[in-house]
């Protein structure tokens, strides 16, 4: 399942970059995070309970940072495993904009397998769309908090 979109922030690019490159801050944007652990600069993991509408799906997710060009581009891979589902997601963020405005173009290639995957794209797509909306809204909140902390 390929998803993409653009999110506009009322914040400088440095602020947005600092949030999306801070695993602990990104963790706060993810739905249902129960614990979070940073292994090193490029690897971290989380235990999440993804709300699927049919009850929560518990999943352990391992994140690996794939590439970064500061203030411009970042990509990471997330591999999740839970009872009834496997997830493999590659996502990337491209930042642009000047001054107090930042535009973030994002892409995600999500593969969900296992019995949950057999629910099919038509069922999962609206659920994922809803979750993506939640993540972006939470990200905006984090960016604004970071901006306030930075004295912006």
């Amino acid at each position, binding site marked *: 399942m390929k998803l993409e979109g653009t999110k506009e922030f009322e914040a400088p690019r440095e602020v947005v970059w600092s949030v999306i490159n801070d695993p602990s801050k990104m963790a706060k944007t993810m739905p249902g995070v129960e614990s979070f652990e940073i292994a090193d600069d490029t690897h971290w993991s989380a235990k999440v309970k993804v709300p699927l509408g049919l009850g929560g799906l518990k999943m352990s997710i391992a994140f690996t940072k794939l590439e970064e060009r500061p203030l411009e581009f970042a990509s990471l891979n997330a591999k999740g495993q839970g*009872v009834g589902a*496997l997830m493999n997601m590659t996502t990337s963020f491209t930042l642009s904009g000047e001054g107090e405005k930042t535009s973030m173009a994002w892409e995600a290639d999500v593969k969900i*397998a296992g*019995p949950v995957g057999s629910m*099919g794209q*038509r069922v999962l797509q609206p659920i994922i769309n809803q979750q993506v909306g939640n993540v972006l809204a939470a990200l905006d909140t984090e960016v604004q908090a970071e901006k306030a902390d930075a004295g912006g």
Partner: protein
Amino acid sequence: MTTTETETTTTPTIQKGFAGQSVPRKEDRRLVEGQGVFFDDVKRHGMGYLHFVRSPYPHARILSIDVAPALELPGVYGTLTGDEVAILTDPFFQIAAEPGGSMKDYALAVGKVRYVGEPVAAVVAETRELARDAAELVLVDYEPLDVVVDARRALDDDAPVLHEECGGNLTYEGVWEWGDVDQAFAEADHVVKISELHFDRFNSTPLELDGALAEYNRGTGQWTITTNNQFPGFAVIMMAPAMRVGTDKLRFVTQDIGGGFGNKITSHPQLVACCLLARKLNRPVQWTEWRTDFHQSMSHGNERWFLDTEVAVKADGTMTGFRTKALDDAGAYLRYEPLGGVIWSQVAAGMYGWRNIRLEFTQVVTNKAPCSPNRGYSRMQHLWFTERLADIVAQELGFDRVEVRKKNYVQPGQMPYETPNGCVYDSGDYPAALDLVLELIGYDTVEERRAEAASRGKLLGFGIGSTLDSGTNNFGQSQLINPDLQFSGNNEVATVKLDIFGEIVVTLGTTPQGQSHETTAAQVVADILGCDVDIVHVRAGHDSYWNSHAGFSGTYASQFAVTGLGAVKGATDMLADQMKTLASMVFQCPKEAIELADGFARIADNHEAALPFMALGAIPNANNAGFPVDPPPMNARFVYRPPFEVPDKERKFGNLTLTYSMQIHACVLEVDPETGVYELVDYAAVDDCGVRINPKIVEGQVMGATAHAIGAAMFESFTYDDEGNLLTPNFYDYHVPHTLDMPPLRTSAVESPSPFTPLGTKGMGEGGGGGIHAISAALQDALRAAGGAIVTDSHNPYHRVFEMLTHPDEARAKVEVSNR
């Protein structure tokens, strides 16, 4: 469900005693008492239970497999991974020539998975449940790859390739052309063009799932596999070379099997995994498949597209030829394929007199479960296509559907009829059978019923489905797709002996799955030997150590009534001759003076001079002193071999199968125009399988096949999403018709004896596809009053009917007529 039977019998050729009567089934008592022995009933001391770890991804590279967490669980005996399989075995032999012939197919996925549900590892544990729990602990690291699920995209330049060694997703392509197609179109008054027809993916549902108990004998190096595989002769030639052993090292044993329908032919990969684990762990291993596993991975029926079809039609409605491009979706592995790419040609012309045919056949692999034979294998898809052509031609050119069929059917006076590709339809009166089914369903009242339904706001539709059930195939047809193959003809074996107390004991080479072989074999034997069926003991099941068998032994492809009973008849004739010879030695009279009747061998014109079977059995076995020459052994083995030639590979011409049973189905349905929901309100089927040994058994098969057809037409579909996930992996989503889904069903039979078989019989049981054709036709008829959509799919659930009601032009856009 109500059933009435009208019997129309023509020219019986054999003397009927028990044969021709609905003798109660010998198998039933043990089955209804719960005393059948299925593979899962067989247990051994210390055995382990196997569970497969299956791929959740439709296409992914396997980066690593860690079985350690599973092995740490108390009660887990051991595991097997694809890496081990790749060391211990060779890839399975491929039927295909290049490019499909290069495919590397193992018992477990090696390096890569290619469909959801593919076995990647196996765990054996103390209990079945523990094995399943332990399998959850096996850690498999996958790197997902792009998928291709639509066969029409499989050959695109940017399509992901499943088997790199094949150089792409193409596995077979060939042009099949007979007659003068261009001339037929040049002389046509009308050309009907259909851009796309689609036969959907489903399979027939056995009550009993696949499985096996594998035992390894370290002393002899032999495996005993108690299994419900329905074609051990095929399994063994796949397994033995892969396992690097001789065929004698694999002993197949079976007693009762709970349904097969062809999809139990290709369980050999799983059987190899069982065997390897039985050897590795030095303990018996039993594998019993789960229903979801079966749906995900075990042998779907072939999905097929017919693209750019054109039909040449004369002004009077005579269809003179067609051309099309058939695209067959084999799923992820070939297994029994690409025989599906040839078996359709047994019925290339359907029941019609087409003399000019061009079919470009292409087969591809996709990220879906592998295909294998499924009741009506490959012919069903093609016959649905020919029936769609008949109905679409009739509707678009304004002909009567019944008359188009009668005009174009092969006529009884043409029998035996050689088709354009050299197949020979042995016998039958198709127009008369159509009349019979029309009478059964009350065709003359259809318009009246249509008006009455309309008064209730319903759209009534009536449809016909004519279908052939070609049986006893000539394996020489495999050379048409791979000239290097060394298979041809067919055979089956039976032994019949007279034991010491006068018991008649029969063994078969077959592996019945509910087809009543014990009963019908006993009927044939009893008639020849002049005794009661109760003293004929047909050994239940099959054991390749003790039952005589031949290379093509098994139960598949509508052939027992010909090959199996042909072998039984041959062996019994031999035994009868031995019995008469022995009696003549005792009575000092010519053999010709002896007759077998009422359980005696007696002098025909002096019934006082009679030896009971017990005496005949005792003489060679226990009382043989004083005979001047050896008494006959009272033991006969016969191999039945149908009279086939190797087909002409250049012309793709020859007799590919020995007999042609025929079924014509007709149905009446009512559609709710608001929702697309429809109901079958009337149904009839006429079957002609030549001489029927046991009419009730035949009728049971007609009914069962009809239920399968209704399921395929209305409910059953293996549907994948664009990501390769199977959306119908269990009975929640995959609805198999039950009693309440069955319409009122009327059946009738015609008997047109085959001139080519020992008993006038024809193989049967796979004609149910007629139901799919009939329902497609009836829907199209019902929709004429609501936009006139053309039915272009074999599977029409309610939502698809709703789409045709709301967007009839989309379905109509696939059809175009040009007139001279």
